[in-house]
């Protein structure tokens, strides 16, 4: 057999070797290691991710005591996570059942974006139920009566709607007012104001 000819035994030998490697790896779970582009293997279970040169060394590593204990821990963690996921899924389902009254809003699954998921949940609650509106109503329904003692005239100040008030407050933040710890408004020193600008401390408190 000529090495230079077309029928070299080298290729066949290489093929045989690869077949052996495949057999060796077959009994190792695919999610526990990763084949690197260099042809080497990295163990994904052990905490230091050792890199192993060949399939043979990988299979011996897998059978080693250190790997086994790591694998055990790994399994446990996986189980715990699955449990948690199931628990949360069940919870989210119950919410969606509650809000099923408005059929048009379907909670979309975005498992990789928990934050967005939470937003969706919040909005679906707002849309379907009277979750927040109730609180607001309790404020708006009862007008506050201020009795002024000298004149004994009852001045009825209609308090602002929740949204309207929110909007007014936003306008003031936009204009550069800030709030201190007591909810009082003060001017941001980096912002310029007109001489006759409205003071939210007066405007907003008046209306409350």
């Amino acid at each position, binding site marked *: 057999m000529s090495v230079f000819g077309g029928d070299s035994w080298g290729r066949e030998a290489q093929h045989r070797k690869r077949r052996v490697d495949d057999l060796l790896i077959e009994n190792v779970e695919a999610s526990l290691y990763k084949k690197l582009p260099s042809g080497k293997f990295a163990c994904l279970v052990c905490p230091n991710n050792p890199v192993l040169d060949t399939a043979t060394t990988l299979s011996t590593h897998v059978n080693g005591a250190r790997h086994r204990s790591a694998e055990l821990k790994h399994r446990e963690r996986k189980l715990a996570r699955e449990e948690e996921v199931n628990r949360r899924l069940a919870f989210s389902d119950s919410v969606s059942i509650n809000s099923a009254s408005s059929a048009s809003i379907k909670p979309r699954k975005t498992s990789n*974006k928990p*934050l*967005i998921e*939470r*937003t969706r949940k*919040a909005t679906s609650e707002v849309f379907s139920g009277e979750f927040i509106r109730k609180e607001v109503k309790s404020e708006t329904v009862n007008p506050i009566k201020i009795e002024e003692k000298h004149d004994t005239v009852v001045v009825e100040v209609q308090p602002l709607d929740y949204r309207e008030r929110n909007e007014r407050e*936003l306008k003031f*933040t*936009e*204009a*550069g007012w800030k709030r201190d710890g007591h909810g009082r408004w003060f001017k*941001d020193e*980096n*912002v*310029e*104001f*007109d*001489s*006759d600008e409205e003071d939210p401390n007066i405007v907003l408190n008046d209306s409350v």
Partner: protein
Amino acid sequence: MYLYSLTLQKATGIICAINGNFSGGKSQEIVVARGKVLDLLRPDENGKLQSLLSVEIFGAIRSLAQFRLTGAQKDYIVVGSDSGRIVILEYNKEKNTFEKIHQETFGKSGCRRIVPGQYLAVDPKGRAVMIGACEKQKLVYVLNRDTSARLTISSPLEAHKSHTIVYSICGVDCGFDNPIFAAIELDYSEADQDPTGQAANEAQKLLTFYELDLGLNHVSRKWSEQVDNGANLLVTVPGGGDGPSGVLVCAENFVIYKNQGHPDVRAVIPRREDLPAERGVLIVSAAMHKQKTMFFFLLQTEYGDIFRVTLDHDNDRVKELKIKYFDTIPVTSSLCVLKSGFLFAASEFGNHALYQFQAIGDDPDVEASSATLMETEEGFQPVFFQPRKLKNLVRIDQVESLMSMMDMKVSNLFEEETPQIFTLCGRGPRSSLRILRPGLAISEMAVSQLPGVPSAVWTVKKNVNDEFDAYIVVSFANATLVLSIGETVEEVSDSGFLDTTPSLSVSLIGDDSLMQVHPSGIRHIREDGRINEWRTPGKRTIVKVGSNRLQVVIALSGGELIYFEVDMTGQLMEVEKHEMSGDVACLDIAPVPEGRQRSRFLAVGSYDNTIRILSLDPDDCMQILSLQSVSSPPESLLFLEVQASIGGEDGADHPASLFLNAGLQNGVLFRTVVDMVTGQLSDARSRFLGLRAPKLFSIAVRGRRAMLCLSSRPWLGYIHQGHFLLTPLSYETLEFAASFSSDQCAEGVVAVAGDALRVFTIERLGESFNETAIPLRYTPRKFVLHPKRKLLVTIESDQGAFTAEEREAAKKESFEAAGMGENGNANQIENGDDEDNSDPLSDEQYGYPKAESGKWVSCIRVLDPRTAQTTCLLELQDNEAAFSMCTVNFHDKEYGTLLAVGTAKGLQFWPKRSFEAGFIHIYRFKEDGKVLELLHKTQVEGVPLALCQFQGRLLAGIGPILRLYDLGKRRLLRKCENKLFPNSITSIHTYRDRIFVGDMQESFHYCKYRRDENQLYIFADDTVPRWLTAAHHIDFDTMAGTDKFGNVFFVRLPQDVSDEIEEDPTGGKIKWEQGKLNGAPNKVEEIVQFHVGDVVSCLYKATLIPGGGECILYGTVMGSLGAFLPFASRDDVDFFSHLEMHMRQEHPPLCGRDHMAYRSSYFPVKDVIDGDLCEQFPTLPMDMQRKIADELDRTPGEILKKLEEIRNKII
């Protein structure tokens, strides 16, 4: 997203120009380089410049030179480009193409400092060419011819000198001795080594002669001498018996004659009297004119004054050098003196001009001479002059140029069918606002009122061999008017035409008789005055007529066709009758093919939405050859014959073909190819032209048949450089038209519209826009449209100029001074002519007087584009200049729309960028928006280069700070700011609560404004440091931008990032997330990338035609307009990318730059198909077209159709 890039208007500016006999023979041509386009121009006999050929070379042309081999009749073109190759081209007159004779590779591609291509010089005897780089490298190629008289080129000989900057090179005329090249060089090796800077101060420019020893085949430095450090340009002086040889060195304030072994002869360049003392005078362009007995030079200074330089010599000894004031024209980049007595001035900015010499400046005028040069303690004594009106030159033509387009917007302010493109062009006194409309320009020759409302018009000749038309026949509702064409156009009654009836058709029939078809018959008027009448049978009337020179077909009411032929004796004989199934809507007969007795095809359109082709052959007369159904009843039919062509003037290689055009009642023009033998119809194309059914007429354009389509506006279908173009005309709606030819107007059109008869000609074929220019005062910077009031507001500014009042005062003073001189000292007034007082010199031609460089002038102008009236013009005082502008509506404030203008005071760029103060002015509109009134101005700590309205407030980019302002009583109130931008903010776009900020050097930054925190956050930026020149907002996540290297790119925020930003409920993420290395946490992705090859200065998203696709338009500094159209289907993308691939392989660019490498000059091209390359497909030879078409599984016709379709989507 895939885009199709198409240049709508090729660059109009000129980088360099050369002249010579490129086609051989006597004619003089000019070759101009317009950045990436090579054009061949020729002044025709009327003194109009015609563009013969225009080739996109897909590379940057840096220099051009022409040479002629000894004894030859034809000039060759040498091109120095960024391809790293020297290319020699020859113009082929027969095929109307540039042919590449030689292409020699010598270095890397691109415009690098040591790669040759920047300078070209040829030996005046055409024996060698030198190609030089800015630094170090110079190569010399020997040119010769082989035994069969073909041009040969040698391998390069090196004349390198390292650490040397080259300023100019030229060939030295030394007859038939060894060729010599001269160069102005500066050696910086010592300055580079010396940290104290002393050597840099002492660096000295040298004039070096390089000799090419033809015997040894070697280049050597022959001679080197110190030269004035202000030297910038070399001009060859004729030698070898014609003159003293040597060179003219143009330096600051001086022109010096130098030659080896000859003392310097130096003369001072005369100065304008009003020039500040610290300003020098530099020569920017030069031309030499040589006749048998004399020669002279024309040198132009940077202020536009041309001087005629003559050398008084005795064989090789130069005795005197004289510089005489010649004339003043706008500053040019190249001057070309043609042997035919023309001067072509390729302007630096603004329109180019062609001048004719009235004199060659022999009259006495201000003159500086080497003999009278006085040296005093303060240096050489200057000579002064006053510019005067043109004396030696007269302008006979100008070529429009949009060069240095600064800003562009598209809007339908005039409420026309298509939107107008508003552009700011030019610089200094030559700046203008130009309004571009898609369509050809026309020039109206005459408009005359008629007694009634005409329905149709024809022109007829009296004899086939006549050159001009004899009569114009106008048909009214119940009469016919005949006008004879002579010196004047007047009504005649002896023509033989029946004038008491309307006409259906009037034409020349046979060789010399006339035919009038009217509803009740045919009147045949013989040359000798005999009249034959044919009457319709019964009560039937003629409804439609089709005729050519020998055949007539009439359609009677009811659908009967009667066919007549002209027999040998000139009689009109009835040949055949045919009954159609219903009424005939229109008919036409194909023109008689050359050398034949009759045409074979008659096309008949019926109201049942069909077009039939009938045979007129005696064998199968009135047989239906083919049938085509169309979408709506045809209104008008026209056969258009295209003659076979093998290239030549204005044509590409294509076989003869016959097209049938039909104007349908739904406004569509339907066009098919008619098989010349069988009459089968194929390759149907349709295009919507307007709301009215197009009427089709055959007219002559440049000696070829063309089609005029009259819909709600007129269109012209013609063949230009191998393309069939269907272009709108910028003219009003017309009813009926006919071609018109008289001795005043060889190729015109006569048309009726309303009750007027109009005669006009069509101009500047091949262009896609026509323009209206409104002059402006200073270099325009930006403009905004006030859409409600249909007004434009522009800001203009110039550095180193005087304000209008100062100029007025200075002018008055100088005139007074000149008047005094007249009384006192007689010899001072030679150019202060009396006429000057009555006719002040126009700034557009003479330029503004110059002031110190630190002085700025600027104005804000409100302009009504409809009347071209300026309704308000505010000059900024106190050395302020405006840089940015926007309209803004502050929320719940009383003023309505306000104008914000960002200005800088005392801005200087050299030695370091500095300024005294920056301001934002707020103006309110008064009197219907026509007048501006200053509300207040706010000082800011930087130059506000970008302003934008945002949520009822004003966003300003002040240096590296993005700041939000609210309107206060006495000033703007700072509300919020972000100082984290890297360099300087140049553009701001907003959409909802997103802000897209463009940084001068670092591409786009995406920001968000949070109301609840009153904070601006940068949440994404680009990974590539782009030097932005223009930006446009595409959609919520996408921005289009261009950089100063000529790239166009689109960046898009990835979808998931965009979602996350929008759905961040707590807002904590955007606040606390941090990027790496001070960048933003997220990065935008580049989705489109393309190298345009020209600095794009403005971008705009618009649809140019009704029903077209929305595209991104761009305007470049060189004055070209282009568009990017997004592809609608994957199939189209595949088709065009394959076509582009084949074109790249089969048709490499002319000047040797690889197309792919060119479009990827800075970044790899991504998802853009180059339409300019695809559109070169019809210029390929026929077999090559077929080969490419085969590879694409299509026919060449289908490819052309595809190209036409996509072009029609854009314009």
